[in-house]
């Protein structure tokens, strides 16, 4: 009873195996043809320069990781190219152009905010902690909150589900992504 059943199962297996083999052959030939064309027409001309840039970057990563880098630290004790040092809070004094009072540079912005009556009132609702004196003004904002610039309309989701890694500059990655794209096209073709 089970024998014919097994036979048909194994022939199914064999059939699907053959089918997969044919598909794979076709995909590989496709990719080879595409890469051949790209290489022959010189469309990947910049490969050497790209490799060089990658190498330099990798080298830089290693070197900086090795040496213990203290220049990223608080700039209090750093001497600039002109041989000067500066306090961590700028101490130049000038007059406020709104009210005329003498203000220290490092405290100018908070003063101006109150002086102009701006800030808390005009600001749209954003949940972000207001800063302490340590951090010096660097924040990353939402892509959404751009007032005037017409955006290119790229997708805002940072976690797009495209499973294939985009092309990097090495040939292997190029080929693997070409294979991926070809497989997807094949599957689409077979869907329709």
């Amino acid at each position: 009873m089970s024998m014919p059943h097994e036979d048909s199962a194994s022939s199914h297996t064999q059939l699907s195996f053959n089918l997969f083999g044919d598909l794979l052959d076709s995909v590989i030939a496709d990719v080879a043809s595409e890469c051949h064309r790209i290489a022959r027409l010189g469309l990947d001309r910049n490969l050497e320069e790209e490799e060089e840039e990658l190498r330099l970057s990798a080298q830089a990563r290693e070197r900086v990781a090795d040496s213990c880098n203290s220049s990223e630290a608080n700039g209090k004790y750093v001497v600039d190219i002109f041989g000067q040092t500066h306090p961590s809070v700028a101490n130049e004094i000038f007059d406020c152009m709104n009210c005329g009072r003498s203000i220290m540079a490092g405290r100018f912005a908070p003063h101006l905010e109150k002086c102009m009556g701006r800030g808390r009132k005009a600001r749209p609702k954003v949940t972000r902690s207001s800063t302490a004196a340590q951090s010096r003004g660097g924040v990353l904002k939402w892509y959404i909150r751009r007032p005037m610039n017409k955006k290119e309309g790229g997708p805002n989701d940072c976690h797009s589900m495209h499973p294939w890694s985009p092309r990097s500059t090495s040939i292997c990655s190029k080929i693997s992504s070409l294979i991926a794209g070809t497989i997807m096209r094949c599957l689409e073709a077979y869907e329709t």
Partner: protein
Amino acid sequence: MFQRNPSYSNPTPCNHLADYKLRYGLNGYKSFQNHLKTTPNGRTSIQNPDSKLPRCGSCDGYEGRLYICLICASISCSNHTLLHNQSENGHDLAVDVERAELYCYACSDQVYDPDFDRTVMSKHIVAAVLEKSQSAERSSKRRRFGSIDLLDLKKLKPLMSVKDQRSKSCYPLGLRGLNNLGNTCFMNSVLQVFLHTPPLSNYFLNDQHNRETCSKRPIGQLCLPCDIDRIFSAVFSGDHMPYSPAQFLYSWWQHSANLAFYEQQDAHEFFISVLDRIHEREWKSRSQDKENGDCKCIAHKAFSGQLRSDVTCMTCGFTSTTYDPCVDISLDLDTHDFLSRNIASKSTKPVDSSSKSTLSGCLDLFTRPEKLGSDQKLFCQNCQEMRSSVKQMSIRRLPLVLCLHIKRFEHSFVRRTSRKIDRYLQFPFSLDMIPYLSSSIIRNRYGNRIFASEGDEIDASSKFEIFAVVSHSGTLESGHYVTYLRLRSQWYKCDDAWITEVDEEMVRNSQCYMMFYLQKIPNYKLNEDLSCLPISPRNDTFQQIAGCC
């Protein structure tokens, strides 16, 4: 000297192809034209008119690659190509049925012919592609490359031909620290970039925006360019003490009410805001050039480019195209964090963190064809129905100064939190934007055929050289911006009031947030004294525009 289509080269034909063309001309190609079948995603193949499965003449097989002889139209499979070639003298050329590629039996290799490709492309054009741009199309006579007019540059006085005697050192002019006025490092970092962006510095240092004549306009009209001009004067004065851009901050807050608060802010947002203000000011003062429609304000002359968005219907292949101006390009990081995290939670395999993010990867991500989900169906004019589509971005016209902004934040809808992506991004110092141009993307869509596609008339170089990097350290809520500038092949770190010399490696290793690249215009000499021009690391003939140093 430019070639017409600089991005690829016409390969020399093999002897067999040359012979074939001499004897038969284009007749063989034309006979195939009717049997070409195109698909919406750009592939071409040969199809039998009666839809019978093509079979090899020798073995009756139908598997593998099949080739149709160009002369006698007999079909051979890959095993029997030589057989056909030997049996019939002179039958060297064939066409791959599956991919519509030329194949030479004698060379056993794929060969290329522009005339064949043109035949294939004409089928595509007839079948699917109807260009419909929604913004007004420009005449082809108009110069399409970077919007700065080269003639303008000739009028500008040569800069920096005399060394400033006051400076105690050999440091280039224009290096001056900017005091942090209280969480204003986002402003300082972008100002440092503006100070050393050649078109902007040329403009302001050549007195193109004169504060005297400008102030004669009615009081109450705010003018941010005047304040920028003031900063230029201060920074290029030769004075070494850090400058406080207080007047600028005051003006900017008056202009941008929604951004006027004492808090940490985003440098990119500030960048866009300043360009908008400069543009507004120019727009009010002079009537917009009606002929071109291109804005002539200095902000747009420097930074404005054009993006092309193609939406292709998956069913019929009809493509609708729109063009949008842009002053920068915001890129997503080519990272798989979300996906790999999902996988990792299901299996025991460790998350692969060895894959590196590169700028070219991000640009590839930006220009890849993206399938719009089934919930995002768009109306296809050809089918007159809602269809699922594929969208692809490309760059139609490159700006003179290319600003690339990396979106280093991600938002998790599940947890409703957002976080910064600290992932290292490799970025090159020399960048070739050819693969991301519309001409290349479109060509690639149709299988990289040798064909003069729209946009190939761009004469400008697509090569760029980096001159400034704005880097961020810290978290989304609290962090610090620093700018790295390259002047005369030396990198300087501008950290608020502190300007220090750094080596190239530190810049390569920094966490880039915005990168600024300048277009290389080949061998254009403004001035014989080019001592202030940076030397290209590869010592090629390209030179940058004479910039301030």
